[in-house]
């Protein structure tokens, strides 16, 4: 397989980072810390790059094409950063207020329709009669769980949960536990797929490269050494409280 040098280096770096990050599952160590700091720095750098790009695309472009009032939004954008100033941090509240206002407006207008009314409608439309027995039972159970869960989250009318009525919350909890069990299993699937993705990368992209098979045991031995508590290893001596 002919791969250019740039790709080879890229694969090596990515492979080392992959192994180093996985080491945290066993024990904290200096290689993990290095990879972690690279990750955080890269993420922040990445967001700057796209921040600049977006400001240029969505702000600068229309501005240079004549939408001069976009100058105002640049000003607002810049004063966002006054939040780091000891005295004038309150100035940043104006642009923040615009962002928060738009965000809230968008979320409220749609939440009430998509997550409140549409869900009530869809529940109300469920048929218990006039369908086969199994569907009827399933739908009935569905309705019971929705109703009990909504009931469960009523907090301020304690009488609704007193005495025998406690059974309603009990049913709700059973319903939710079933849902959580299902979610948990699906998360296992997601995470395992991700692990597969990384291992597949190591095995099909990295290991076939010349030298990788030799490097692998060395990397692992170094990692294992780094996991030994600093007090117990001969070198380097602990200069720092862990």
């Amino acid at each position, binding site marked *: 397989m002919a791969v250019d040098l740039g790709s080879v280096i890229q694969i090596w770096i990515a492979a080392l980072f992959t192994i180093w990050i996985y080491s*945290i599952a066993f024990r*904290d160590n200096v290689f*993990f810390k290095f990879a*972690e700091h690279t*990750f*955080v720095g890269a993420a922040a750098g990445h967001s700057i790059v796209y921040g600049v790009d977006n400001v240029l695309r969505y702000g600068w472009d229309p501005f240079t094409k004549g939408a001069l009032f976009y100058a105002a939004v640049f000003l607002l954008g810049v004063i966002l950063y006054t939040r780091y100033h000891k005295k004038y941090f309150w100035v940043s509240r104006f642009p*923040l207020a615009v962002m928060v206002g738009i*965000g809230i407006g968008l979320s*409220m*207008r749609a939440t*009430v329709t998509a997550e*409140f*009314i549409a869900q*009530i*409608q869809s*529940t*109300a*439309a*469920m*048929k*218990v*009669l006039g369908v086969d027995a199994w569907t009827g039972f399933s739908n009935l159970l569905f*309705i019971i769980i*929705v*109703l009990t869960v*909504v*009931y*469960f*989250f*009523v*907090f*301020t*009318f*304690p009488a*609704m*949960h007193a005495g025998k009525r406690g059974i309603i919350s009990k049913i709700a*909890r059973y319903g*939710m*536990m079933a*849902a*959580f*069990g299902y*979610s*948990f299993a699906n*998360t296992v699937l997601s995470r395992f797929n991700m692990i597969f993705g990384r291992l597949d990368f190591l095995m099909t992209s990295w290991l076939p490269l010349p030298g990788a098979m030799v490097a692998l045991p060395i990397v692992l031995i170094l990692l294992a050494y780094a996991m030994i508590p600093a007090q117990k290893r001969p070198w380097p001596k602990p200069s720092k409280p*862990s």
Partner: protein
Amino acid sequence: MGMLIALWIFIIGCMEMAKKKLPSFRKLAGLDALPEMVGRAAEMNRPVHFTTGLGELTGTVAPQLVAGLAVLGYVSELAAKYGVKIIYSVYQAQVMPIATELMREAYIRAGKADAFDAEGQIRYLSGEQFAYATAVQGIAERERPAANIMIGPFYAESMMFSETFFRIGSIQLAGTARGYQIPFFAVVCDYLLIGEEIYAAGAYLSKDAVQCGSIQGQDLGKLIAWILMFIGVLATAAGSPIIIDLLKA
């Protein structure tokens, strides 16, 4: 839109009413467990660990953070009373001053003002998710808290925390309104505050009129939803789409 206006009126109305008289709350099982958890830590002579997850006070998850802080105040008072050390792991620098005040007041209320050691008890663990996560795991391994309480907006670190504290044998109470993370808490933790229960817990413990009233307003909204669904199902069974049509308008 009518629905939105109706909800608006309920929420504001209840907030106004709550200023005069706080609504009463139903029992929250997780909160009742707190004295027992802190008591167990006292018996074992080990600390209690508390953390409120990620997020900023300026973001949409701020109410979750506030709820976590309300519980922190309550647990600190319990810990002060029982003479247990409570460690609070902080992700947000902006929360530090608030938490310090909150815990100091709790210690004063318990009559143990001298026992409070802000530097040693409130640990700022960087504003980076995984650095914070590893540091919390480090605290778990080294100081072996007898109890671990996590309330607030949690993200991917939820599983790391609950698993690590489970391994060292801590008794755990966890709650978050971030739906994706509740299952991990449900699987591992001993006590669970599900979703909005944390808001109720926060409002209930802080006795803040705005929060309590807002929750009562939401409760009225839930009752409306409940009644609409109930009647709707009956109507559908009887062959009438009245509720469904009503909601289309």
